[in-house]
């Protein structure tokens, strides 16, 4: 198994994963989407809401706001020593009290833990008119994407097999395919048509379709995956991959333990 990083920042990551089966790549993808823990607002205690939105609408909007928290410092409510009743080890409390006229932003939430913060401070929650008021307490808890999308930190997490063009002898170098490529990555090198950058290819197959002689075929390398995903800001992408791999490892170990006991 080999990993070659193509692009990496705190919010986006792209790498070439080679020498693995599709099952392995898919396991990593699913772990990233559904198993990596994240903090999100899970419960609201609404004291006063005279805004135009229903309590439920506000609850959904607040749940989707990404929250940055060190997930190693918090427990899942069901695994916490308090037995799921709620304590400072498994939940964070945000308070909000705003009177109109103003727009209430995610940045107006005041956290009980100074290290747990909202990632984007400029997300509008609701616009209040003169005399309208929103007063509530929000409880943030740790969870995983399998349970609800608000606990999913990986965005647009997907992979494709690395594509390449196979050219038959029918090719007369008419260059139609080169011109047809919207990304400009089909080119003639040494008298042969080639896909120069398979990573960038969007698999549109325009080059294949424009060829009058049916000389081109888009093929895939079944053991190489161009893997990409983004983070919603609650965690760094590098931390997310490591977390996902560790979760996979734990699951496999658990399985092998069960199998040994049979």
């Amino acid at each position, binding site marked *: 198994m080999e990993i070659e990083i193509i692009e990496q920042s705190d919010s986006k990551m792209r790498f070439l994963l080679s020498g693995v089966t599709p099952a392995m790549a898919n396991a990593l993808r699913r772990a990233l989407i559904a198993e990596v823990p994240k903090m999100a607002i899970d419960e609201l205690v609404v004291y006063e809401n005279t805004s135009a939105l229903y309590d439920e609408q506000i609850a959904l909007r607040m749940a989707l*706001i990404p929250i940055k928290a060190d997930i190693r410092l918090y427990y899942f409510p069901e695994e916490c020593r308090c037995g799921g009743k709620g304590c400072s080890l498994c939940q964070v409390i945000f308070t909000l009290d705003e009177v109109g006229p103003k727009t209430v932003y*995610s940045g107006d939430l005041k956290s009980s833990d100074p290290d747990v913060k909202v*990632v984007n401070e400029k997300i509008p929650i609701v*616009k209040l008119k003169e005399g309208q008021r929103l007063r509530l307490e929000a409880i943030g808890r740790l969870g995983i994407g399998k349970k609800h999308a608000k606990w999913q930190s990986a*965005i647009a997490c997907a992979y494709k097999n690395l594509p390449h063009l196979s050219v038959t002898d029918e090719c007369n170098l008419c260059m139609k395919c080169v011109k047809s490529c919207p990304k400009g990555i089909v080119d003639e090198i040494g008298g042969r048509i080639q896909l120069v950058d398979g990573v960038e290819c969007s698999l549109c197959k325009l080059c294949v379709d424009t060829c009058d002689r049916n000389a081109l075929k888009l093929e895939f390398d079944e053991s190489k995956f161009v893997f990409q995903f983004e983070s919603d800001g609650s965690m760094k992408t590098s931390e997310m991959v490591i977390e996902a791999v560790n979760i996979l490892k734990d699951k496999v170990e658990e399985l092998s333990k069960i199998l040994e006991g049979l």
Partner: protein
Amino acid sequence: MMIPVRCFTCGKVIGDLWEEFSKRCENEPPGKVLDDLGVTRYCCRRMLLTHVELIDLVSRYE
């Protein structure tokens, strides 16, 4: 009503981009503003492009 917090399809946070987007669209082409804001996928672009802010109309009622 209010701009959705995230893109319905991919989950990217787009709520925080709305105010800048709607302001800049008054004298710039929307496509260019979206490119500037780093909204690349068409699922996220339609979230901002097709949004109708109705909150001012509705907030007269409680």
